[in-house]
């Protein structure tokens, strides 16, 4: 596993007069084998940052390493799987090409890893529940043998009882495989649960970052404080 590093990353979106800096100079490191949670509200640039890391949007400035071998798991499992492709072929497509690769075996191993049965390989996404789809998306990301995984709001399209299962899976996989992971969410409680460190993003900038407990118990930035105060709490 490798660390994920953003150095002075700027991303400009839109054309000509509509163009605006969405990410305005981000420095962030995800140390190898750890989970960094990235929180922020919609429009703060966190999803754009994720898309930049996998090359879906071009950088205006800065550097992201590694330049390849980064996989992204998307928010909505209903749209991130090709509706015409079986689970098996979706995962198999991601397995790196090479001599002596047992694709079928690899697909079975990955499905087992994310808690799906081998029989699921022949099914189409529409026959799966939201939670199962998200498991497939995770298996597909892992199939590419990534050096870094980015999870972009992977539980926010799911029901709360399913969300728990996916979060448990993410934690298990991360520990078993020693994954380097950038975990993006608008939900502070979810980020707190899966992350070792947390970074808070606002208006295209990282305003605060540090170990989860430090940042959440003693926030230094006023925005982080507002965010924490806004979280609805039961107790």
């Amino acid at each position: 596993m490798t660390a994920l590093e953003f150095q002075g990353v700027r991303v400009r979106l839109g054309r000509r007069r509509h163009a605006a800096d969405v990410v305005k100079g981000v420095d962030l490191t995800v140390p190898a084998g750890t989970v960094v949670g990235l929180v922020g509200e919609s429009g703060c640039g966190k999803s754009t940052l994720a898309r930049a890391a996998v090359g879906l949007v071009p950088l205006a400035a800065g550097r992201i390493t590694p330049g390849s071998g980064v996989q992204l798991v998307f928010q909505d499992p209903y749209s991130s799987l090709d509706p015409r492709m079986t689970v098996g072929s979706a995962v198999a497509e991601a397995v790196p090409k090479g001599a002596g690769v047992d694709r079928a075996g690899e697909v079975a191993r990955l499905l087992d890893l994310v808690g799906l049965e081998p029989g699921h390989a022949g099914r189409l996404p529409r026959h799966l529940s939201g939670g199962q789809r998200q498991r497939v998306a995770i298996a597909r990301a892992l199939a590419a043998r990534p050096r870094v995984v980015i999870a972009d709001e992977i539980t926010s399209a799911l029901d709360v009882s399913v969300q728990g299962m996916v979060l448990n899976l993410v934690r298990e996989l991360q520990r078993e495989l020693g994954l380097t992971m950038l975990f993006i969410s608008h939900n502070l409680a979810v980020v707190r649960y899966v992350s070792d460190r947390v970074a808070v993003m606002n208006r295209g900038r990282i305003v605060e970052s540090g170990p989860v407990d430090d940042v959440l118990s003693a926030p230094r930035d006023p925005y982080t404080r507002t965010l924490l105060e806004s979280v609805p709490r039961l107790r």
Partner: protein
Amino acid sequence: MAVPTPHHPAPPGDPVEEQAPPEERSSRPARPGAYLARRFLRFLLSLLLLVTATFGMVHVVPGDPVRAALGITASPELVAARTHELGLDLPVWEQYARYAAGLFSGDLGTSMISGLPVSQTIADRLPYTVMLALVAFAVVMVTAIPAGMAAAAWTRGGRGRAAELLFTGASGLLAVVPEFLLAVAMIVLFAVTWELLPVANVSGSLTPSYYVLPTLALAVGPAAALARIVRVEALSVLSSDFMRTARAKRLPARLIYLRHALPNLLTGALTIGGLLISGLVAGSVLVENVFVWPGLGSALVEAIKAKDYPVVQGVVLVYGGAVLLVNLAVDVALGRLDPRSTIKED
């Protein structure tokens, strides 16, 4: 562009979703000026394409166009003289320049057959075609929008099954039957069998009764098509969230339909209406031929058959230009009616 949320995912892959913080992004200036300028530029490009296409048309015709127009009996001297007269012996770029320059001064060339200026022919014929198209368009708009809305109101939520079948069946049939077949059927029924209405008048003066059959033949199909679209649009508007809000406010039906539904329908209807006019322009070519209408359409077909290329060029320019103008007008109107439409990138 919705704010991405747990239960209402924003259109994925739309990178613009994160352009600015939500509270700031709120009032994005529509900048009507920029939109109009962009739209006008597109109009000019289309016009350029049209001019180039009509010019190029003559040059890709296999064989010698002058020889084709004058026939095989014409002497080589005559062909050479006419070729020179038309400037067809010049280099292509020079011909193009002369052609374009001629357009600016209203000179569309002269007919190879009659020797009359093409602009003269067009000026004589155009008013008849314009009248025909305008009357037909008015008929379409006045009948289709109320019919479509009424059908939607009656057949919502699986009510009025019989009415729905009748409406979709009848409008579907009418929308499919092409105008020239309808014209033939109308002639057979109203002119030949019942002798109610006149058909063709070669002698000139057109009284209103001569308009009935051609306009009907031209209008019925588009009206049926538009009514169908208005119904579908109305159904989707009626089941939208903001209509639920309007009902939650317990507003009277009159306000719900006229104030809340209609404006949201008009944008769709207008877009289709613009397309319909383009269709009317093309359809008029056929209808004019069926009814021996002294308009541009008959002239076009006669010219094509006679291989009278300058006339074909001129008439196609007029038709194409008219379509482009209508599209431009519709887009400008849309921009005024629905401020959101100007934001869309084309």
